[in-house]
């Protein structure tokens, strides 16, 4: 059974390929493997057993495969994304990057398929660890620091999750990963939710994302933007639909993300803040919890993975070809990198929700879900976030990279495989937008939704059009400035610096002082006291009894002096001893 389980589980091939990647590279077949494994996985997810498969282990029932309608939509987009990411990174010669990316995908698929919390936790940590290497493998000092912070934050989140799991097990002896009813949620569930929310980058647990993603490798960030947060969306959708805290925090993070995106200068950081914003729509939809809102969250996760990856790929091409990702250092690249521009703009209009793109048919479902549930406050916040989205990613980002003032940075269009990856993602943006049934068929909850009606169309064109007019009026004011904006990570980054300064300054000085005091005062007095006590022992106590101890010491000293330390002497002594022994035996 174990063997068939392994072959059925899509993570297995990813892990196997990841481990053997150095060998594949040596044999020069790694490109074929990089494409073949995701293709097999796309097929595999259609052949999964419908019943949950459980394996007994240490008295627990581990469910490695639990496939239903909710897992299917996420598995579908994850495997498609793995294929796009693999094609985009075909030119990379560093096998470690491919290994890390495949382990990361394996972790994400494993989490999506796990039916119990122990299995989930194992794959959850695999994701965290593998993705850290996608940052470190950029091999710059900035990436090393960002990767370490990323790992520490995710370990903390993992510990919150683990604490929740342990509490849950001790309270209920049940580790099945199923929906938690709002009325039955206890402290254990909230610990688990906090662990999930950290990965979904819900403020104030979000700063790791905008800190780490801009420093990752070009291909690493394409993978990372798709999997960590969306796996978190899946687990929240599985366990916590209808929790009010998610609805409110989701709407807040949707606005929070775009506000930072409006003022940021680093192109990949703008996109990172937009992940926070877009995941906000999904978290909000899950929190509202109605069929329409949850369907909207899933649909938006699907669409978001593809257009966000497209945006990261487009900006990644610019970074790969020019070595720059700050808007203030770029500009006027449209003549030199026209295809990257076209693809990025397609990603930009999709994320903004233009009609006939994927964002239009998915984002509006969440907003309609908020409207149907009569959540006016949430609805207005989500609409506000879509204004900010179009302003910063739809217009500002492409404008200051490809148009605006020509920076004179030399560049040319990226290698064919990067273009191919972008072309596939761009195709899906339009395909889903024009044929939403493809996406709606996979949704987990029942319900009908028709995105293309006259009012919705007119509403979208007005909002986006007049946002465009606003940018046109303010384009000089919105010019990026070469500055860094503080976020929540200030607390631990500055906090760590303060701790380091304290450690290297006052704490180190006190430690030195105490050491010196001990050496001068403590050590000498202790030695003197010890000598005095020895004299007292030998001179008084031993003398008063029989002097035996004193004589043992003297004899010991003599024996010690007999030791020459030369091997031949010992051998000779042993030989003499054996000779004498033999004589005794013979004579007696």
């Amino acid at each position, binding site marked *: 059974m174990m063997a068939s389980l392994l072959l059925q589980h899509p993570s297995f091939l990813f892990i196997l390929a990841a481990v053997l990647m150095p060998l594949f590279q040596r044999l020069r077949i790694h490109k074929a493997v990089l494409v073949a494994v995701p293709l097999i996985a796309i097929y595999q997810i259609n052949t999964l057993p419908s019943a949950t498969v459980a394996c007994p282990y240490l008295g627990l029932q581990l469910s490695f495969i639990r496939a239903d309608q909710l897992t299917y939509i996420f598995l579908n987009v994850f495997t498609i994304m793995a294929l796009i990411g693999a094609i985009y990174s075909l030119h990379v010669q560093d096998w470690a990057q491919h290994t890390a990316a495949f382990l990361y995908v394996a972790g994400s698929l494993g989490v999506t398929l796990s039916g119990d919390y122990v299995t989930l936790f194992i794959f959850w940590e695999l994701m965290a660890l593998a993705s850290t290497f996608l940052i470190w493998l950029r091999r710059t000092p900035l990436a090393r620091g960002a990767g370490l912070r990323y790992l520490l934050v995710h370990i903390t989140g993992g510990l919150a999750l683990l604490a929740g799991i342990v509490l849950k097990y001790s309270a209920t002896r049940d580790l099945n990963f199923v929906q938690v009813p709002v009325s039955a949620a206890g402290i254990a569930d909230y610990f688990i939710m906090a662990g999930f929310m950290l990965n979904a980058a819900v403020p104030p647990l979000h700063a790791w994302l905008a800190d780490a993603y801009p420093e990752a490798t070009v291909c690493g960030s394409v993978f990372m933007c798709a999997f960590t947060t969306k796996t978190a969306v899946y687990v929240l959708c599985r366990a916590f639909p209808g929790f009010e805290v998610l609805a409110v925090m989701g709407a807040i993070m949707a606005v929070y993300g775009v506000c930072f995106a*409006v003022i940021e200068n680093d192109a990949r950081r703008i996109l990172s803040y937009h992940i926070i914003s877009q995941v906000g729509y999904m978290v909000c939809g899950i929190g509202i919890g109605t069929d329409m809102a949850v369907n909207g969250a899933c649909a938006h996760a699907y669409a978001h993975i593809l257009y966000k990856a497209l945006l990261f790929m487009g900006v990644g091409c610019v970074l790969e070809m020019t070595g720059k990702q700050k808007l203030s250092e770029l500009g006027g690249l449209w003549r030199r990198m*026209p295809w990257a521009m076209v693809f990025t703009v397609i990603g930009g209009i999709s994320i903004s929700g233009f009609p006939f793109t994927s964002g239009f048919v998915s984002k509006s479902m969440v907003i309609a879900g908020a*409207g149907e549930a009569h959540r006016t406050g949430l609805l207005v916040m989500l609409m506000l976030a879509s204004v*900010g989205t179009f302003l910063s990613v739809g217009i500002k980002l492409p404008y200051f990279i490809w148009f605006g003032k020509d920076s004179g940075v030399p560049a040319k269009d990226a290698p064919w495989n990067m273009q191919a990856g972008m072309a596939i993602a761009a195709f899906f943006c339009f395909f889903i937008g024009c044929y939403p049934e493809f996406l709606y068929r996979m949704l987990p909850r029942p319900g009908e939704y028709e995105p293309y009606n006259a009012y919705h169309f007119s509403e979208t064109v007005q909002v986006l059009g007049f*946002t465009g007019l*606003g940018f046109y009026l303010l384009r000089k*004011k*919105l010019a990026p400035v070469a500055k860094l904006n503080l976020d929540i990570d200030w607390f631990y980054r500055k906090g760590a610096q303060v701790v380091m300064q304290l450690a290297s300054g006052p704490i180190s000085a006190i430690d030195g002082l105490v050491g010196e005091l001990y050496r001068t005062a403590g050590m000498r007095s202790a030695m003197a006291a010890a000598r005095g006590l020895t004299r007292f022992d030998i001179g008084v106590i031993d003398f008063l009894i029989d002097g035996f101890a004193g004589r043992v010491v003297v004899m010991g000293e003599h024996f010690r002096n007999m030791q020459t330390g030369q091997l031949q002497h010992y051998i000779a002594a042993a030989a003499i001893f054996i000779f004498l022994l033999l004589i005794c035996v013979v004579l007696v």
Partner: protein
Amino acid sequence: MLLKILSFLNNRIPVLKWCFFAVLAASSLADIFVPRHEEHFFGDPIRLFWTAFGLVCCLAMSFMCKWISKHMIARSEDYYDG
């Protein structure tokens, strides 16, 4: 090929600009006549609500975020290096 199309468009920016304004006018005008099937919140029945919402929010968000950045959270790029 793509570059030719882009150059063609780039040479006609004033035309594009007027096209953009025409789309804006058309979308606002259309909103006056578009029927509302379901009204979910107070803004839905108001004509030109989304026109005003888009423009006002864009301007307000730009000014506020830029102000907060400039006066409160912007630091030099080597702020964390020290």
